């Protein structure tokens, strides 16, 4: 499995800005003797939707946590620059059960922002955008799993992130809910246009959602693939099959359709 850094043809539709939103240079992270990230170089242009694939233990979560600034106690080196406003969506919604939904969305935001806009109003708007209008005063425990994750998206959204990090955000949802959430995430991205780094183990999810898919293997980026298909994409789109096969091959799954681990 050669590290095939390839471009499946890509005249970028939007001109690449001079300065990337995220730049990782020689990023290394290790836990004890085990090197999890081994000198990762990565640029993410502003507004790009990137999916990061990899086996469990490939270091994809470590990479995301490094970019999110959550790895205080991890040894490592390298350079990392991220935008000012970064939001994270976790696999679980992490809504505080003792705060009502709107208060969860607004957690940590000032009552009025720099431009004097009312935070509560923006929180309501964000909830409406994810389809939770009218649930502002519910307790998180009263929401379904999918609704909780929507509320978590609203909480990210209200901060108007330049970079949205998502760590397997749909991993705990059922298949139908997941498809709806895919559509929602893509819509939100089109409207607000943050850079997105989506960590997932689901090849289909990566291929359907992202404009660029990375495969992390042994702490390095083994594949950097631009998915040049129009949106909205369907799982059944035959053109998607080609990407899927390349990605599965990069993940070490034989092309004759042997089940992919963790799918």
């Amino acid at each position, binding site marked *: 499995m050669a590290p095939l850094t390839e471009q499946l043809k890509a005249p970028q539709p939007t001109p690449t800005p001079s300065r990337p939103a995220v730049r990782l240079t020689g990023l290394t992270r290790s836990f004890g003797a085990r090197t999890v990230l081994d000198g990762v170089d990565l640029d993410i242009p502003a507004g790009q939707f990137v999916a990061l694939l990899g086996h469990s233990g490939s270091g994809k979560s470590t990479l995301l946590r490094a970019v999110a600034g959550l790895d205080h106690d991890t040894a490592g080196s390298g350079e990392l620059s991220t935008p000012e406003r970064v939001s*994270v969506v976790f696999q679980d919604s*992490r809504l*505080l059960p*003792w*705060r009502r939904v709107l208060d969860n969305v607004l*957690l940590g935001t000032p009552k009025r922002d720099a431009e004097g806009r009312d935070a509560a109003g923006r929180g309501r708007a964000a909830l409406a955008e994810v389809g939770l209008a009218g649930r502002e005063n519910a*307790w998180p*425990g009263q929401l379904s799993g999918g609704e909780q994750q929507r509320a978590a998206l609203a909480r990210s959204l209200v901060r108007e992130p330049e970079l949205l990090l998502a760590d397997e955000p749909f991993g705990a949802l059922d298949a139908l809910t997941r498809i709806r959430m895919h559509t929602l995430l893509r819509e939100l991205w089109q409207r607000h246009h943050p850079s997105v780094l989506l960590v997932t183990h689901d090849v289909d999810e990566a291929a359907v959602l992202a404009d660029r898919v990375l495969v992390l293997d042994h702490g390095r980026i083994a594949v950097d693939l631009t998915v040049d298909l129009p949106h909205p994409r369907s799982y059944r789109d035959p053109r998607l099959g080609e990407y899927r096969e390349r990605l599965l091959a990069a993940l070490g799954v034989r092309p004759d359709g042997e089940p992919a681990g963790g799918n």
Partner: protein
Amino acid sequence: MAEHVSTAVVTAPQPVHPASMPAPAPATTPVSVARGGPTGRPRTRRLAPGPRRPYARLLGPLLLLAVWAGASGAGLLDPRVLPAPWTVLHTGAHLWTGGTLRTDLATSLWRAAQGFAIGLAAGVVLALAAGLSRTGEALIDGTVQVNRAVPTLGLIPLFILWLGIGETFKVVIIAIVVYIPVYLNLHAALAGIDARYVELAEVLRLSRWQFVRQVVIPGALPGFFVGLRLAVTGSWLSLVVLEQINATNGLGYLMFQAQNYGQTDVIVLGLLIYGVFGFASDSAVRLLERRVLAWRRSLSS
């Protein structure tokens, strides 16, 4: 004719009444019996206890009272051992109007309230200091654990020497009994805050103060209430002991005197008052808990 009927019975899917009688609604019997009851629910056994009924907790104490009254009325109880409830009530009314019960009660309540308030404040402050900073934990936690290992009532002789036999030492002892469960439970709850919420707070760039106020403290409240209930009970418990050994007034003193004169009814009256107050204060804490932790009820509904 008889043979015909019997064959009809045999071939029927289940035993039915003879043809001459109107069959009682056969539609209800098939299919639904196997998988669902008449309410259209599958027959599963409910393992959780059913819904809670209001004031159901009063049932046990009331039953006990009824047994006591019954046994007294039937003459099964020697009044010198355990006087009848009405005797106790009568004594209570007598002492209330003509005796010292009113002032004794007020004194006891005041002592318990003072000790409880001081102990509660100390427990909360120490637990916050130990739970929110490593320095605080290093200084406080070990000390409290040592204090906890020393039986508080064993400190009474020392405290009398230090503080004299007046009110101060009583209030201090109650405060110590109260602060320990408050500290232990609140500290454990603060230390046990879910690491996922800490990550969330970091990602949301909360200030330390916002983190403490909006994440840590609300998350620790359930544990705090466990400590609070133990503390309420503890304050009454220590009051009894304190007032029976070193006091010139108060409910415990009243009972101690009654012991000297063999007044069982007064002793039982004192015990009843303790019981009622203990039960009432525990219920008050429960009520407060239900208010403050309203979000928890939503999980079960």
